[in-house]
Protein backbone atom coordinates (compact mmCIF):
# COMPACT_ATOMS: atom_id res chain seq x y z
CA UNK A 1 0.00 0.00 0.00
CA UNK A 2 2.61 2.46 1.05
CA UNK A 3 5.28 3.36 -1.43
CA UNK A 4 8.04 3.82 1.13
CA UNK A 5 10.08 0.84 2.27
CA UNK A 6 8.87 -0.75 5.46
CA UNK A 7 11.23 -0.69 8.45
CA UNK A 8 9.69 -3.98 9.58
CA UNK A 9 7.31 -6.46 7.97
CA UNK A 10 5.16 -8.94 9.84
CA UNK A 11 1.65 -9.78 10.94
CA UNK A 12 -0.98 -8.48 13.29
CA UNK A 13 -2.92 -11.30 14.88
CA UNK A 14 -6.09 -10.86 16.92
CA UNK A 15 -7.97 -13.95 17.98
CA UNK A 16 -7.63 -16.33 15.05
CA UNK A 17 -7.42 -13.56 12.46
CA UNK A 18 -4.01 -12.60 11.08
CA UNK A 19 -2.97 -10.20 8.33
CA UNK A 20 0.27 -8.85 6.96
CA UNK A 21 1.41 -5.31 7.79
CA UNK A 22 4.35 -3.04 7.19
CA UNK A 23 5.69 -0.82 9.97
CA UNK A 24 7.14 2.59 9.09
CA UNK A 25 8.97 5.19 11.17
CA UNK A 26 6.44 7.97 11.81
CA UNK A 27 8.68 10.45 13.59
CA UNK A 28 12.39 10.99 13.79
CA UNK A 29 14.30 13.10 16.27
CA UNK A 30 16.56 15.59 14.61
CA UNK A 31 19.81 16.05 16.48
CA UNK A 32 21.50 19.37 16.38
CA UNK A 33 24.78 20.47 17.84
CA UNK A 34 24.85 24.13 18.74
CA UNK A 35 28.35 24.15 20.17
CA UNK A 36 31.65 22.37 19.93
CA UNK A 37 33.66 21.55 23.00
CA UNK A 38 37.03 23.26 23.09
CA UNK A 39 40.14 23.09 25.24
CA UNK A 40 40.17 26.44 27.04
CA UNK A 41 43.97 26.42 27.25
CA UNK A 42 44.63 25.99 23.52
CA UNK A 43 41.31 26.85 21.88
CA UNK A 44 41.53 23.55 19.98
CA UNK A 45 38.63 21.15 19.50
CA UNK A 46 38.59 18.11 21.79
CA UNK A 47 37.89 14.51 20.89
CA UNK A 48 36.70 11.59 22.94
CA UNK A 49 38.94 8.68 23.88
CA UNK A 50 38.21 5.47 25.75
CA UNK A 51 40.75 4.42 28.35
CA UNK A 52 41.16 1.72 30.99
CA UNK A 53 40.14 3.28 34.32
CA UNK A 54 43.07 1.61 36.15
CA UNK A 55 45.93 1.56 33.68
CA UNK A 56 44.94 4.66 31.70
CA UNK A 57 45.74 2.83 28.45
CA UNK A 58 43.60 3.43 25.40
CA UNK A 59 41.01 0.72 24.74
CA UNK A 60 39.97 0.30 21.12
CA UNK A 61 36.40 -0.59 20.27
CA UNK A 62 37.08 -4.28 19.54
CA UNK A 63 38.76 -4.60 22.93
CA UNK A 64 35.62 -3.43 24.75
CA UNK A 65 33.19 -5.93 26.25
CA UNK A 66 29.97 -5.57 28.25
CA UNK A 67 30.04 -6.41 31.93
CA UNK A 68 27.40 -6.60 34.65
CA UNK A 69 28.54 -5.50 38.09
CA UNK A 70 27.72 -8.23 40.62
CA UNK A 71 29.75 -6.90 43.53
CA UNK A 72 31.78 -3.80 43.96
CA UNK A 73 34.26 -3.87 41.08
CA UNK A 74 33.45 -7.48 40.23
CA UNK A 75 31.92 -8.04 36.81
CA UNK A 76 30.31 -10.86 34.87
CA UNK A 77 31.34 -10.44 31.24
CA UNK A 78 28.65 -11.05 28.64
CA UNK A 79 29.36 -11.46 24.95
CA UNK A 80 26.82 -10.01 22.47
CA UNK A 81 25.57 -13.55 21.64
CA UNK A 82 24.84 -14.16 25.30
CA UNK A 83 22.83 -10.97 25.59
CA UNK A 84 20.98 -11.83 22.39
CA UNK A 85 20.04 -15.22 23.87
CA UNK A 86 17.76 -13.46 26.36
CA UNK A 87 15.60 -12.15 23.53
CA UNK A 88 12.99 -14.62 22.23
CA UNK A 89 13.09 -15.69 18.60
CA UNK A 90 11.22 -13.28 16.41
CA UNK A 91 7.99 -14.71 15.03
CA UNK A 92 7.29 -11.43 13.23
CA UNK A 93 3.85 -11.25 14.79
CA UNK A 94 2.17 -8.49 16.74
CA UNK A 95 -0.23 -10.73 18.66
CA UNK A 96 -2.89 -8.66 20.36
CA UNK A 97 -3.09 -9.73 23.99
CA UNK A 98 -5.51 -7.15 25.29
CA UNK A 99 -7.57 -4.12 24.37
CA UNK A 100 -7.38 -1.09 26.68
CA UNK A 101 -9.97 1.71 26.86
CA UNK A 102 -8.25 4.77 25.36
CA UNK A 103 -9.15 7.02 28.28
CA UNK A 104 -7.38 4.72 30.76
CA UNK A 105 -3.99 4.67 29.04
CA UNK A 106 -1.18 6.43 30.91
CA UNK A 107 0.43 8.34 28.04
CA UNK A 108 3.70 8.79 29.97
CA UNK A 109 4.52 5.25 28.79
CA UNK A 110 4.48 6.23 25.10
CA UNK A 111 7.86 5.93 23.41
CA UNK A 112 8.15 6.00 19.58
CA UNK A 113 5.34 6.06 17.01
CA UNK A 114 5.26 3.96 13.83
CA UNK A 115 2.71 3.93 11.02
CA UNK A 116 1.17 0.51 10.41
CA UNK A 117 -0.25 -0.10 6.93
CA UNK A 118 -1.66 -3.31 5.42
CA UNK A 119 0.41 -5.36 3.04
CA UNK A 120 -1.49 -6.01 -0.23
CA UNK A 121 -3.87 -8.83 0.78
CA UNK A 122 -4.65 -7.90 4.35
CA UNK A 123 -6.75 -4.81 3.79
CA UNK A 124 -10.15 -6.21 4.81
CA UNK A 125 -8.99 -7.57 8.16
CA UNK A 126 -6.93 -4.39 8.72
CA UNK A 127 -9.97 -2.17 8.23
CA UNK A 128 -12.10 -4.40 10.43
CA UNK A 129 -9.68 -4.17 13.33
CA UNK A 130 -9.23 -0.42 12.82
CA UNK A 131 -12.96 0.36 12.67
CA UNK A 132 -13.75 -2.08 15.46
CA UNK A 133 -11.23 -0.43 17.80
CA UNK A 134 -12.42 3.04 16.83
CA UNK A 135 -16.03 2.13 17.56
CA UNK A 136 -15.14 0.54 20.92
CA UNK A 137 -12.75 3.47 21.78
CA UNK A 138 -9.94 1.08 22.63
CA UNK A 139 -6.29 0.57 21.69
CA UNK A 140 -4.61 -2.83 21.40
CA UNK A 141 -1.54 -4.15 23.23
CA UNK A 142 0.84 -6.51 21.48
CA UNK A 143 4.38 -7.72 22.09
CA UNK A 144 6.93 -8.60 19.45
CA UNK A 145 10.64 -8.44 18.68
CA UNK A 146 11.28 -5.15 16.87
CA UNK A 147 14.78 -4.27 15.73
CA UNK A 148 16.29 -6.98 17.96
CA UNK A 149 14.53 -5.84 21.10
CA UNK A 150 11.37 -7.25 22.65
CA UNK A 151 8.91 -4.37 22.66
CA UNK A 152 5.34 -3.81 23.82
CA UNK A 153 3.41 -1.92 21.16
CA UNK A 154 0.18 0.03 21.62
CA UNK A 155 -1.87 0.00 18.42
CA UNK A 156 -4.45 2.72 17.84
CA UNK A 157 -6.53 3.80 14.81
CA UNK A 158 -5.24 6.95 13.14
CA UNK A 159 -7.04 8.30 10.08
CA UNK A 160 -7.21 5.54 7.49
CA UNK A 161 -4.42 3.60 9.14
CA UNK A 162 -3.05 2.47 12.48
CA UNK A 163 -0.27 3.86 14.62
CA UNK A 164 1.81 1.44 16.69
CA UNK A 165 3.63 3.18 19.52
CA UNK A 166 6.34 1.35 21.43
CA UNK A 167 5.84 1.60 25.19
CA UNK A 168 8.42 2.10 27.91
CA UNK A 169 8.61 -0.81 30.33
CA UNK A 170 7.09 -0.51 33.80
CA UNK A 171 10.50 -0.07 35.44
CA UNK A 172 11.41 2.79 33.08
CA UNK A 173 8.53 5.04 34.10
CA UNK A 174 8.30 6.96 37.37
CA UNK A 175 4.82 6.85 38.80
CA UNK A 176 3.16 10.26 38.58
CA UNK A 177 1.38 9.49 41.81
CA UNK A 178 4.69 9.09 43.63
CA UNK A 179 6.23 12.09 41.89
CA UNK A 180 3.42 14.35 43.11
CA UNK A 181 2.89 12.61 46.43
CA UNK A 182 4.49 15.38 48.50
CA UNK A 183 2.31 18.13 47.07
CA UNK A 184 -0.45 19.43 49.33
CA UNK A 185 -4.03 18.65 48.43
CA UNK A 186 -5.04 22.14 47.33
CA UNK A 187 -8.33 22.39 45.52
CA UNK A 188 -8.99 25.80 44.02
CA UNK A 189 -12.60 26.91 43.92
CA UNK A 190 -14.78 29.98 43.74
CA UNK A 191 -13.66 33.30 42.25
CA UNK A 192 -10.02 32.28 41.78
CA UNK A 193 -10.96 29.25 39.70
CA UNK A 194 -13.55 31.22 37.71
CA UNK A 195 -11.02 33.96 36.90
CA UNK A 196 -8.36 31.44 35.82
CA UNK A 197 -10.91 29.59 33.69
CA UNK A 198 -11.85 32.89 32.08
CA UNK A 199 -8.19 33.68 31.30
CA UNK A 200 -7.81 30.26 29.69
CA UNK A 201 -10.85 30.83 27.46
CA UNK A 202 -9.39 34.12 26.22
CA UNK A 203 -6.19 32.29 25.22
CA UNK A 204 -7.87 29.49 23.34
CA UNK A 205 -5.95 28.39 20.25
CA UNK A 206 -4.27 25.41 18.73
CA UNK A 207 -0.82 23.83 18.51
CA UNK A 208 0.69 24.26 15.06
CA UNK A 209 4.00 22.44 14.84
CA UNK A 210 4.74 23.89 11.40
CA UNK A 211 4.52 27.42 12.74
CA UNK A 212 6.88 26.78 15.64
CA UNK A 213 10.44 28.08 15.41
CA UNK A 214 13.41 27.17 17.53
CA UNK A 215 14.72 30.66 18.34
CA UNK A 216 17.67 29.45 20.39
CA UNK A 217 20.22 29.60 17.56
CA UNK A 218 19.28 33.16 16.66
CA UNK A 219 19.48 34.21 20.31
CA UNK A 220 22.95 32.66 20.68
CA UNK A 221 24.10 34.34 17.45
CA UNK A 222 23.03 37.65 18.99
CA UNK A 223 24.93 36.82 22.16
CA UNK A 224 28.05 36.04 20.13
CA UNK A 225 27.69 39.26 18.16
CA UNK A 226 27.43 41.24 21.38
CA UNK A 227 30.52 39.53 22.73
CA UNK A 228 32.56 40.27 19.59
CA UNK A 229 31.50 43.90 19.68
CA UNK A 230 32.35 44.09 23.35
CA UNK A 231 28.77 44.83 24.34
CA UNK A 232 27.33 43.02 27.31
CA UNK A 233 23.75 41.85 27.24
CA UNK A 234 21.61 42.88 30.18
CA UNK A 235 21.39 40.27 32.92
CA UNK A 236 18.15 38.35 32.77
CA UNK A 237 15.85 38.84 35.66
CA UNK A 238 13.48 36.22 36.94
CA UNK A 239 9.85 37.24 37.12
CA UNK A 240 8.72 37.91 40.68
CA UNK A 241 6.57 35.02 41.89
CA UNK A 242 3.01 35.95 42.76
CA UNK A 243 2.63 36.20 46.50
CA UNK A 244 -0.19 34.25 47.95
CA UNK A 245 -1.79 37.44 49.20
CA UNK A 246 -1.59 39.03 45.73
CA UNK A 247 -2.79 35.99 43.80
CA UNK A 248 -6.43 37.00 43.61
CA UNK A 249 -5.41 40.51 42.58
CA UNK A 250 -3.09 39.17 39.87
CA UNK A 251 -5.88 36.96 38.57
CA UNK A 252 -8.35 39.84 38.52
CA UNK A 253 -5.91 42.03 36.61
CA UNK A 254 -5.09 39.20 34.18
CA UNK A 255 -8.74 38.46 33.52
CA UNK A 256 -9.42 42.11 32.85
CA UNK A 257 -6.77 42.33 30.13
CA UNK A 258 -8.00 42.76 26.59
CA UNK A 259 -7.78 39.57 24.57
CA UNK A 260 -6.05 39.88 21.20
CA UNK A 261 -8.30 40.33 18.20
CA UNK A 262 -6.88 37.58 16.02
CA UNK A 263 -7.02 33.93 17.05
CA UNK A 264 -3.80 32.86 18.72
CA UNK A 265 -1.54 30.33 17.07
CA UNK A 266 1.01 28.21 18.84
CA UNK A 267 3.36 29.69 21.32
CA UNK A 268 6.32 31.91 20.83
CA UNK A 269 5.25 33.32 17.51
CA UNK A 270 4.66 36.82 18.69
CA UNK A 271 8.22 38.05 18.37
CA UNK A 272 9.72 35.54 15.94
CA UNK A 273 9.99 38.19 13.24
CA UNK A 274 13.05 39.17 11.22
CA UNK A 275 14.46 41.56 13.76
CA UNK A 276 17.01 40.49 16.33
CA UNK A 277 15.55 39.02 19.51
CA UNK A 278 14.88 41.71 22.02
CA UNK A 279 17.29 41.79 24.89
CA UNK A 280 14.40 41.97 27.22
CA UNK A 281 10.75 41.75 26.50
CA UNK A 282 8.56 44.31 28.24
CA UNK A 283 7.75 42.99 31.62
CA UNK A 284 6.28 44.18 34.83
CA UNK A 285 9.41 43.19 36.66
CA UNK A 286 11.02 46.49 35.63
CA UNK A 287 8.58 48.44 37.68
CA UNK A 288 8.86 46.06 40.53
CA UNK A 289 12.63 46.36 40.59
Amino acid at each position, binding site marked *: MATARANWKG*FIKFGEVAFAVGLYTA*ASSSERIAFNTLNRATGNRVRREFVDSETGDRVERDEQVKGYEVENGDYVVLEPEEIAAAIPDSDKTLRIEAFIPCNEIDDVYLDKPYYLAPDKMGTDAFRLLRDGMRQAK*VAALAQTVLFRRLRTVLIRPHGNGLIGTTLNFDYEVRSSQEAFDDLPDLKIEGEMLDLAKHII*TTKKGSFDAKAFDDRYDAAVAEL*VKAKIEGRSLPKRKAPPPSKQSDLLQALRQSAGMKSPAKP*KRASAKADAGDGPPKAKRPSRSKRAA
Partner: protein
Amino acid sequence: MALRPYWKGYLKLSLVTCPVQMMPATSENEKVRFHTLNRATHNRVVSHYVDAVTGKEVKDEDEVKGYQRGEDDYIILEDEELENVALDSTKTIDIDVFSPRDSVEWIWLDTPYYLSPDDPVGQEAFSVIRDAMAAEDMVGISSLVISRRERAVMLEPRGKGIVLWTLRYGDEVRDEEAYFSGIDDAPSDSQVMPLIQQLIKKQTRHWDPKLVADPVQDKLLEIIEAKRKKTKRPTKAKSSEPKATPNNVINIMDALRKSVEAEDRPRKR
Protein backbone atom coordinates in the same frame (compact mmCIF):
# COMPACT_ATOMS: atom_id res chain seq x y z
CA MET B 1 13.79 9.86 47.53
CA ALA B 2 15.41 13.24 47.00
CA LEU B 3 16.16 13.45 43.31
CA ARG B 4 17.79 16.53 41.90
CA PRO B 5 15.46 18.52 39.68
CA TYR B 6 16.31 18.47 35.99
CA TRP B 7 15.25 22.09 35.53
CA LYS B 8 14.08 24.92 37.76
CA GLY B 9 12.26 28.02 36.62
CA TYR B 10 8.88 29.70 36.56
CA LEU B 11 5.41 28.84 35.39
CA LYS B 12 3.47 31.84 34.21
CA LEU B 13 -0.12 32.50 33.22
CA SER B 14 -0.68 36.14 32.38
CA LEU B 15 0.24 38.00 35.60
CA VAL B 16 0.34 34.88 37.75
CA THR B 17 3.81 33.41 38.27
CA CYS B 18 5.16 30.63 40.46
CA PRO B 19 8.53 28.89 40.90
CA VAL B 20 8.49 25.33 39.55
CA GLN B 21 10.83 22.38 39.15
CA MET B 22 10.84 19.62 36.58
CA MET B 23 11.89 15.95 36.59
CA PRO B 24 12.04 13.44 33.76
CA ALA B 25 9.09 11.02 33.96
CA THR B 26 11.19 8.15 32.66
CA SER B 27 14.40 6.73 34.05
CA GLU B 28 17.01 4.14 33.10
CA ASN B 29 17.95 3.48 36.72
CA GLU B 30 16.03 0.26 37.18
CA LYS B 31 17.22 -1.28 33.95
CA VAL B 32 19.76 -4.11 33.90
CA ARG B 33 22.77 -1.97 33.09
CA PHE B 34 26.00 -3.06 31.55
CA HIS B 35 29.31 -1.30 31.86
CA THR B 36 31.98 -1.26 29.22
CA LEU B 37 35.07 -3.21 30.25
CA ASN B 38 38.53 -3.71 28.84
CA ARG B 39 38.54 -7.34 27.69
CA ALA B 40 42.19 -7.76 28.65
CA THR B 41 42.02 -6.42 32.22
CA HIS B 42 38.27 -6.50 33.04
CA ASN B 43 38.66 -2.96 34.32
CA ARG B 44 35.99 -0.37 33.57
CA VAL B 45 36.50 1.67 30.41
CA VAL B 46 35.96 5.39 30.86
CA SER B 47 35.85 8.11 28.26
CA HIS B 48 37.78 11.32 28.53
CA TYR B 49 38.57 14.20 26.22
CA VAL B 50 41.89 14.89 24.56
CA ASP B 51 43.02 17.94 22.63
CA ALA B 52 42.44 17.19 18.96
CA VAL B 53 45.75 18.82 18.00
CA THR B 54 48.15 18.06 20.87
CA GLY B 55 46.54 14.74 21.88
CA LYS B 56 46.92 15.68 25.56
CA GLU B 57 44.17 15.01 28.06
CA VAL B 58 41.79 17.92 28.69
CA LYS B 59 40.57 18.30 32.26
CA ASP B 60 36.87 18.85 32.93
CA GLU B 61 37.41 22.42 34.05
CA ASP B 62 39.26 23.20 30.81
CA GLU B 63 36.35 22.09 28.66
CA VAL B 64 34.46 25.07 27.33
CA LYS B 65 31.77 25.62 24.72
CA GLY B 66 32.82 27.09 21.39
CA TYR B 67 30.51 28.75 18.90
CA GLN B 68 31.79 28.13 15.40
CA ARG B 69 32.29 31.34 13.44
CA GLY B 70 34.27 29.92 10.53
CA GLU B 71 36.65 27.10 9.81
CA ASP B 72 38.84 26.59 12.90
CA ASP B 73 37.46 29.85 14.23
CA TYR B 74 35.51 29.66 17.48
CA ILE B 75 34.13 32.14 19.97
CA ILE B 76 34.34 30.78 23.50
CA LEU B 77 31.12 31.02 25.49
CA GLU B 78 31.08 30.46 29.23
CA ASP B 79 28.02 28.92 30.86
CA GLU B 80 27.32 32.16 32.73
CA GLU B 81 27.30 34.05 29.44
CA LEU B 82 24.86 31.56 27.94
CA GLU B 83 22.54 32.14 30.89
CA ASN B 84 22.03 35.62 29.48
CA VAL B 85 20.73 34.47 26.14
CA ALA B 86 17.81 36.75 25.30
CA LEU B 87 15.00 34.24 25.46
CA ASP B 88 12.41 34.26 28.24
CA SER B 89 11.77 30.59 27.52
CA THR B 90 15.07 29.61 29.16
CA LYS B 91 13.64 30.39 32.60
CA THR B 92 9.91 30.83 32.20
CA ILE B 93 7.15 28.62 30.85
CA ASP B 94 4.68 31.31 29.81
CA ILE B 95 1.47 29.59 28.78
CA ASP B 96 0.05 31.71 26.01
CA VAL B 97 -2.21 29.23 24.23
CA PHE B 98 -4.71 26.69 25.56
CA SER B 99 -6.12 23.95 23.45
CA PRO B 100 -8.64 21.11 23.98
CA ARG B 101 -6.90 18.09 25.49
CA ASP B 102 -7.52 15.81 22.50
CA SER B 103 -6.37 18.35 19.91
CA VAL B 104 -2.68 17.49 20.29
CA GLU B 105 -2.29 14.01 18.84
CA TRP B 106 -0.04 11.40 20.46
CA ILE B 107 2.28 11.47 17.50
CA TRP B 108 3.54 14.92 18.58
CA LEU B 109 4.44 13.81 22.11
CA ASP B 110 8.19 13.45 22.52
CA THR B 111 9.52 13.31 26.12
CA PRO B 112 7.46 13.57 29.33
CA TYR B 113 8.48 15.44 32.50
CA TYR B 114 6.77 15.99 35.84
CA LEU B 115 6.30 19.62 36.81
CA SER B 116 5.64 20.66 40.41
CA PRO B 117 5.91 23.80 42.57
CA ASP B 118 9.46 24.47 43.79
CA ASP B 119 8.53 26.56 46.79
CA PRO B 120 5.54 26.53 49.15
CA VAL B 121 5.00 30.19 48.13
CA GLY B 122 3.94 29.07 44.65
CA GLN B 123 1.69 26.18 45.57
CA GLU B 124 -1.54 28.09 45.33
CA ALA B 125 -0.70 29.78 42.03
CA PHE B 126 0.39 26.41 40.63
CA SER B 127 -2.86 24.82 41.76
CA VAL B 128 -4.91 27.63 40.19
CA ILE B 129 -3.32 27.02 36.78
CA ARG B 130 -3.61 23.23 37.12
CA ASP B 131 -7.21 23.18 38.30
CA ALA B 132 -8.41 25.71 35.73
CA MET B 133 -6.91 23.59 32.91
CA ALA B 134 -8.55 20.48 34.37
CA ALA B 135 -11.92 22.23 34.76
CA GLU B 136 -11.85 23.41 31.14
CA ASP B 137 -10.43 20.06 29.89
CA MET B 138 -7.63 22.03 28.24
CA VAL B 139 -3.89 21.62 27.89
CA GLY B 140 -1.47 24.54 27.85
CA ILE B 141 0.91 25.14 24.92
CA SER B 142 4.13 27.03 25.53
CA SER B 143 7.82 26.93 24.75
CA LEU B 144 10.87 26.07 26.83
CA VAL B 145 14.60 25.86 26.21
CA ILE B 146 15.79 22.33 27.05
CA SER B 147 19.28 21.06 26.19
CA ARG B 148 20.06 24.25 24.27
CA ARG B 149 17.09 24.02 21.96
CA GLU B 150 13.79 25.81 22.20
CA ARG B 151 10.99 23.26 22.28
CA ALA B 152 7.25 23.55 21.97
CA VAL B 153 5.80 22.04 25.14
CA MET B 154 2.37 20.86 26.29
CA LEU B 155 1.20 21.06 29.90
CA GLU B 156 -1.39 18.60 31.08
CA PRO B 157 -2.87 18.47 34.62
CA ARG B 158 -2.29 15.12 36.28
CA GLY B 159 -3.39 14.45 39.85
CA LYS B 160 -1.75 17.04 42.10
CA GLY B 161 0.86 17.95 39.48
CA ILE B 162 1.34 18.73 35.80
CA VAL B 163 2.86 16.55 33.08
CA LEU B 164 4.98 18.58 30.68
CA TRP B 165 5.62 17.04 27.25
CA THR B 166 8.14 18.31 24.76
CA LEU B 167 6.44 18.30 21.36
CA ARG B 168 8.15 17.26 18.16
CA TYR B 169 9.18 19.85 15.58
CA GLY B 170 6.99 20.12 12.49
CA ASP B 171 9.53 18.47 10.20
CA GLU B 172 10.06 15.49 12.53
CA VAL B 173 6.69 13.87 11.91
CA ARG B 174 6.30 12.21 8.53
CA ASP B 175 3.23 12.84 6.43
CA GLU B 176 0.81 9.98 7.04
CA GLU B 177 -0.63 10.36 3.54
CA ALA B 178 2.38 8.57 2.05
CA TYR B 179 1.55 5.49 4.11
CA PHE B 180 -2.22 5.52 4.49
CA SER B 181 -3.50 6.99 1.22
CA GLY B 182 -3.59 3.59 -0.51
CA ILE B 183 -5.92 2.07 2.08
CA ASP B 184 -9.40 1.55 0.73
CA ASP B 185 -11.71 3.78 2.77
CA ALA B 186 -14.91 1.89 2.06
CA PRO B 187 -16.77 1.07 5.29
CA SER B 188 -15.82 -2.32 6.66
CA ASP B 189 -18.22 -5.24 6.50
CA SER B 190 -21.13 -4.39 8.81
CA GLN B 191 -22.04 -8.07 9.19
CA VAL B 192 -18.72 -8.86 10.80
CA MET B 193 -18.66 -5.78 13.02
CA PRO B 194 -20.78 -7.24 15.85
CA LEU B 195 -18.37 -10.19 16.07
CA ILE B 196 -15.37 -7.84 16.24
CA GLN B 197 -17.08 -5.87 18.98
CA GLN B 198 -17.77 -9.08 20.88
CA LEU B 199 -14.14 -10.15 20.61
CA ILE B 200 -12.85 -6.72 21.65
CA LYS B 201 -15.17 -6.67 24.64
CA LYS B 202 -14.01 -10.08 25.81
CA GLN B 203 -10.38 -9.09 25.56
CA THR B 204 -10.68 -5.61 27.06
CA ARG B 205 -8.65 -5.09 30.25
CA HIS B 206 -8.04 -2.13 32.51
CA TRP B 207 -4.76 -0.28 32.04
CA ASP B 208 -2.11 -1.61 34.39
CA PRO B 209 1.67 -1.00 34.36
CA LYS B 210 2.06 -4.78 34.72
CA LEU B 211 0.94 -5.03 31.11
CA VAL B 212 4.31 -3.58 30.12
CA ALA B 213 6.52 -5.96 32.08
CA ASP B 214 9.78 -6.99 30.43
CA PRO B 215 10.53 -10.74 30.41
CA VAL B 216 13.92 -10.10 28.77
CA GLN B 217 15.16 -8.25 31.83
CA ASP B 218 14.47 -11.28 34.06
CA LYS B 219 16.04 -13.60 31.52
CA LEU B 220 19.19 -11.46 31.45
CA LEU B 221 19.48 -11.61 35.23
CA GLU B 222 19.10 -15.41 35.03
CA ILE B 223 21.86 -15.63 32.45
CA ILE B 224 24.12 -13.45 34.60
CA GLU B 225 23.39 -15.50 37.71
CA ALA B 226 24.00 -18.77 35.87
CA LYS B 227 27.27 -17.50 34.49
CA ARG B 228 28.35 -16.30 37.88
CA LYS B 229 27.74 -19.73 39.32
CA LYS B 230 29.50 -21.16 36.27
CA THR B 231 26.59 -23.52 35.81
CA LYS B 232 24.98 -24.26 32.50
CA ARG B 233 23.40 -21.38 30.74
CA PRO B 234 19.61 -21.39 30.47
CA THR B 235 18.43 -22.42 27.05
CA LYS B 236 17.37 -19.82 24.55
CA ALA B 237 13.95 -18.37 25.11
CA LYS B 238 11.57 -19.82 22.61
CA SER B 239 8.63 -18.03 21.13
CA SER B 240 5.62 -19.81 22.46
CA GLU B 241 3.48 -19.91 19.37
CA PRO B 242 4.16 -20.68 15.72
CA LYS B 243 4.30 -17.89 13.22
CA ALA B 244 0.94 -16.52 12.24
CA THR B 245 -0.33 -17.34 8.81
CA PRO B 246 -2.46 -14.71 7.16
CA ASN B 247 -6.10 -15.60 6.83
CA ASN B 248 -7.85 -15.63 3.56
CA VAL B 249 -10.25 -12.75 3.21
CA ILE B 250 -13.22 -15.10 2.93
CA ASN B 251 -12.79 -16.84 6.25
CA ILE B 252 -12.40 -13.78 8.49
CA MET B 253 -15.93 -14.45 9.71
CA ASP B 254 -15.08 -18.06 10.60
CA ALA B 255 -11.83 -17.08 12.24
CA LEU B 256 -13.63 -14.47 14.33
CA ARG B 257 -16.29 -16.98 15.42
CA LYS B 258 -13.52 -19.35 16.49
CA SER B 259 -11.82 -16.51 18.33
CA VAL B 260 -14.93 -15.60 20.26
CA GLU B 261 -15.52 -19.28 21.11
CA ALA B 262 -11.94 -19.63 22.27
CA GLU B 263 -12.41 -16.62 24.53
CA ASP B 264 -15.46 -18.27 26.05
CA ARG B 265 -13.50 -21.36 27.08
CA PRO B 266 -11.76 -21.15 30.44
CA ARG B 267 -8.22 -19.85 30.06
CA LYS B 268 -5.24 -22.14 30.21
CA ARG B 269 -2.87 -21.78 33.16
